[in-house]
């Protein structure tokens, strides 16, 4: 895929992501275990974490986020969320959201089980298509929700992904 060539080597950090690196798996397993523990402890204390300049609502549940953005969620096939059914590395999970609803002005990506569920809020100006694709961190297997604001209403759709190794957010 053309995308792969586009990603520079440094995109993957100082450690090579090459599958031929035998130490990487060990490091990831150790790191993943630690991160899992951290994530679990944080989940019990949703208000933990000093995130002072936070422009996103720090709601810890989907319902809270839906409330914060106003509107009753409507589920339909007009909104599509695409994530891999299984991922090895939760630190790098591709997700794309597409809406065929007219006048889609906003797309929110929410990761059900992350300590900070709201991953991104994308504003779609007039003339831009209601489509976005990005990479997110997913702490553990669960649902990825998309919230789409269209015509004053909030619509939701979701997809599930199974994470072998949590990418602690």
């Amino acid at each position: 895929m053309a995308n792969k060539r586009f990603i520079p080597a440094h995109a993957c950090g100082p450690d090579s992501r090459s599958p031929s690196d035998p130490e990487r798996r060990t490091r990831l397993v150790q790191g993943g275990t630690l991160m899992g523990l951290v994530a679990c402890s944080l989940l019990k204390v949703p208000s933990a974490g000093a995130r002072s300049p936070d422009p996103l609502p720090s709601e810890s549940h989907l319902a809270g986020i839906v409330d914060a953005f106003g509107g009753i969620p409507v589920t339909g096939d007009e909104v599509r969320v695409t994530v891999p059914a299984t991922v090895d590395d939760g630190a790098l999970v591709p997700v794309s959201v597409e809406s065929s609803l007219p006048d889609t002005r906003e797309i929110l990506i929410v990761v059900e089980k992350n300590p900070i569920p709201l991953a991104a809020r994308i504003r779609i100006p007039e003339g831009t298509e209601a489509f976005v694709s990005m990479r997110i961190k997913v702490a553990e297997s669960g649902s990825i929700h998309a919230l789409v604001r269209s015509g004053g209403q909030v619509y939701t759709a979701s997809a599930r992904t199974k994470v072998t190794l949590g990418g602690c957010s």
Partner: protein
Amino acid sequence: MASREETAEETALGHPIRIRARARNGITEALVLMPHPMESGFRRTGQGGVVPAHYITEVQITVGDRTVLEATLSPAVARDPLLSFRFRGGRPGDRIRVSWVDSAGVRRADEATIV
């Protein structure tokens, strides 16, 4: 381990935003990669400390005076955020500009030509 992570952060921040934008049949497809550590503030160092949160909070993408995308990111966005999107209009030769600001107040902006 801590010092190695810091080095990684500086390296990521020092890289320019990579932008590919291609206009075809009235639609421009854009792919934007913003090198940034996107530290969540939850990650532990080997010494038991916590790597402080440091992540891109706002992204704005413009073509001339027109804003084609705006995004607010949380630390749950993966390291080196990669954004792909499409907008109507945009001609080969137009300049597309991407700017971000992070939780530490660092700013970066880069441009590319639509092909």
